[in-house]
């Protein structure tokens, strides 16, 4: 009898844990991912509409719509898996960093040839990702070499095509999330789920998105403009032409704070510590007063960016060493090394 009770208790606790995992996955999908992607879709559609109304790069309504949609992208830019991965959609929205200046090269080629691909929405999906998405659009709107590029009618058409393409890509991501990927993640561990054989694998995916975001912000968004002490590289700052570099760091801190908060629901003390750390990073970013990291060339300016970078690195460390194990995801010596 006692044997039976123990067995029964084991079965109950195992299934309770599985339910806890499903709840965790559901909360991240429904409260973090879907609202973020829906917002991206709506604001990208607004941007495409604004471009139809005016393709003047100085038009305030267009600039406002550009800012709104770009903000919405940054808030989901750490979600690189699933529908973002399909058909290279994530890269089609955001080709950055661009270490070989492929974006200006690809745009110049299109403009020089007055390439008719800019009139064909289906064909445009096959152009290089370097000529698609927010960073290509930024060049067209904010780089003096492109914003006044002749012939004007073609530049205008290219701008409209890039925004329409952005909007279509975002909508495709949302549709996939709603119809395919949400059911897939919520059924993680089910016998017929071929993508996530256990609920743990789905949790691992969400945890990985958090780590990816933290690493991208510290190493790319901050690390690239910082360069080295001897050779700072302010001109490598993300979206510096539209003055958005620091803003992207702030938006990503806020989005990752939101995700971490949901992932730490079952470990409230750790959740509270994380939330304090995120708050500190957000405060440091808010007080930085260096929108495109131009001050990294000066010792004082550099130190302040470094302090901000370290404040996010501490969060990544805390997530790897405490949140990961609490979620039961793999964080071994070799497993996390990545080589």
């Amino acid at each position, binding site marked *: 009898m006692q044997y039976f009770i123990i067995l029964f208790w084991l079965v109950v606790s195992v299934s309770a844990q599985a339910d806890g995992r499903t709840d965790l996955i559901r909360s991240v999908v429904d409260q973090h991912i879907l609202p973020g992607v829906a917002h991206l879709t709506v604001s990208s559609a607004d941007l495409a509409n604004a471009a139809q109304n005016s393709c003047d790069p100085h038009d305030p309504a267009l600039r406002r719509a550009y800012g709104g949609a770009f903000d919405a992208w940054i808030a989901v830019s750490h979600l690189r*898996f*699933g529908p973002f*991965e*399909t058909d*290279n959609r994530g*890269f089609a929205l955001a*080709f950055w*960093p661009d*270490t*070989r200046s*492929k974006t200006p090269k690809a745009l110049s080629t299109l403009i020089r040839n007055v390439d008719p691909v800019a009139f064909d929405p289906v064909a445009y999906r096959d152009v290089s*990702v*370097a000529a698609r998405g927010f960073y290509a659009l930024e060049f067209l709107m904010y780089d003096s070499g492109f914003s006044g590029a002749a012939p004007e009618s073609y530049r205008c058409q290219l701008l409209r095509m890039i925004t329409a393409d952005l909007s279509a890509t975002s909508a495709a991501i949302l549709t996939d999330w709603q119809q395919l990927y949400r059911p897939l993640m919520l059924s993680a561990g089910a016998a017929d789920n*071929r*993508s996530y*054989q256990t609920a743990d*694998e789905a949790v691992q995916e969400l945890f990985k998105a958090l780590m990816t975001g933290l*690493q*991208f912000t*510290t*190493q*790319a968004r901050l*690390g*690239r403009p*910082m*360069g*080295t002490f001897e050779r700072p*590289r302010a001109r490598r700052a993300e979206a510096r032409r539209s003055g958005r570099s620091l803003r992207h760091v702030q938006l990503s801190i806020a989005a990752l704070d939101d995700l971490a908060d949901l992932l730490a629901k079952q470990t409230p003390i750790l959740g509270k510590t994380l939330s304090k750390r995120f708050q500190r990073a957000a405060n440091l970013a808010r007080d930085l007063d260096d929108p495109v990291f131009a001050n990294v060339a000066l010792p004082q300016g550099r130190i302040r960016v470094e302090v901000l970078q370290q404040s996010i690195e501490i969060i990544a460390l805390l997530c790897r060493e405490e949140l990961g194990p609490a979620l039961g995801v*793999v964080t*071994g*010596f*070799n*497993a996390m*090394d*990545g*080589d």
Partner: protein
Amino acid sequence: MRTRRGVIAGFLASGLLPRLGWAALGNPTFLAAAQLPDDSYGLLGMDADGQALFTVPLPGRGHAAAAHPTRPEAVAFARRPGDFALIIECTTGRQTARLQAPAGRHFYGHGVFSSDGSRLFTTENDYEAGRGVVGVWAAGEAYQRLGEFSSGGIGPHDIARLPNSDTLVVANGGLETHPDSGREKLNLATMQPNLSYLSTQGVRLEQIEMPTALRMNSIRHLAVRPDGLVAFAMQAQSRAGAAVGLIGFHQRGRPAELAVYPRSELVELQGYIGSVAFSTDGTQLALSSPRGGVVHYIDAEHKCYTRRIPNRDVCGIGASAAGFLATAGTGRVTVMPNGRPSYHHSYPHRWDNHLIAAAPPSHG
């Protein structure tokens, strides 16, 4: 172990040291880097049964090593993106030379000696240009840098030599990184890994590019069989790529092929293979996935998956005539003898990525 140290000390005292070969060290079968119990790092020699023979201190976390074909001398590479590597005389633990990557280059953590032992080839990143290079070093007293040539791609990682030749084979992983942004992958949107065969002069002899479905599977590690069959292990940067395949085979002049895998075992690898090794008779291949916590065996003739051996945080894989050996971040050294059950030794070490054959006969 004490006895061997005694033997070495005796040789030292008698001034016989310069003539010592690998035999004086008990003929270590493998070299492996590890984090030691006191949190420092070291390079260890190990026999085929997984017994540690000697420890040489390293200044930081190691990745892999390369053993000189005749002298008891090893190059220990720092973890990427290190800009130095140490030449260690394994009989004494003495550091005899230090390889400093030239300005604008860093090591990727792998290297290989020429068949006569006179040259060392190292995979490196020319990070401002974002291109992979192979550094060439004179493997004499001082390890002078002689030059470099293109690796044939971006992000070269493992490098090996085809048996009985000086043809190099390089796993160009395709991933661009820059020390300013740590290990962040900068070109996921455009990455295109390849397998390149190069002469020691840097002439590209053959190159295999991956098809579109595998574009985001970074080729990282290699194993070479005496007949020149190359096994290449990949690390997927996309879920879709992970589901296509992670282990391939190639023989010069033929098309590459992926190992046949049951779906659930492929998924179990979590898109990530850490190390790979052929059995000494060449009939089997063993691979490790630290993320999946598992070792898989592949039938090298039919190129298909055959069995799995769970092993948490496993990464290093090596082969001797007795069978395979696996090292793990948990400290376990697992001996997997041919046709007999596995057993393990527990060390207070955290074994790092690779087990390297100390004097591989097939690479002679």
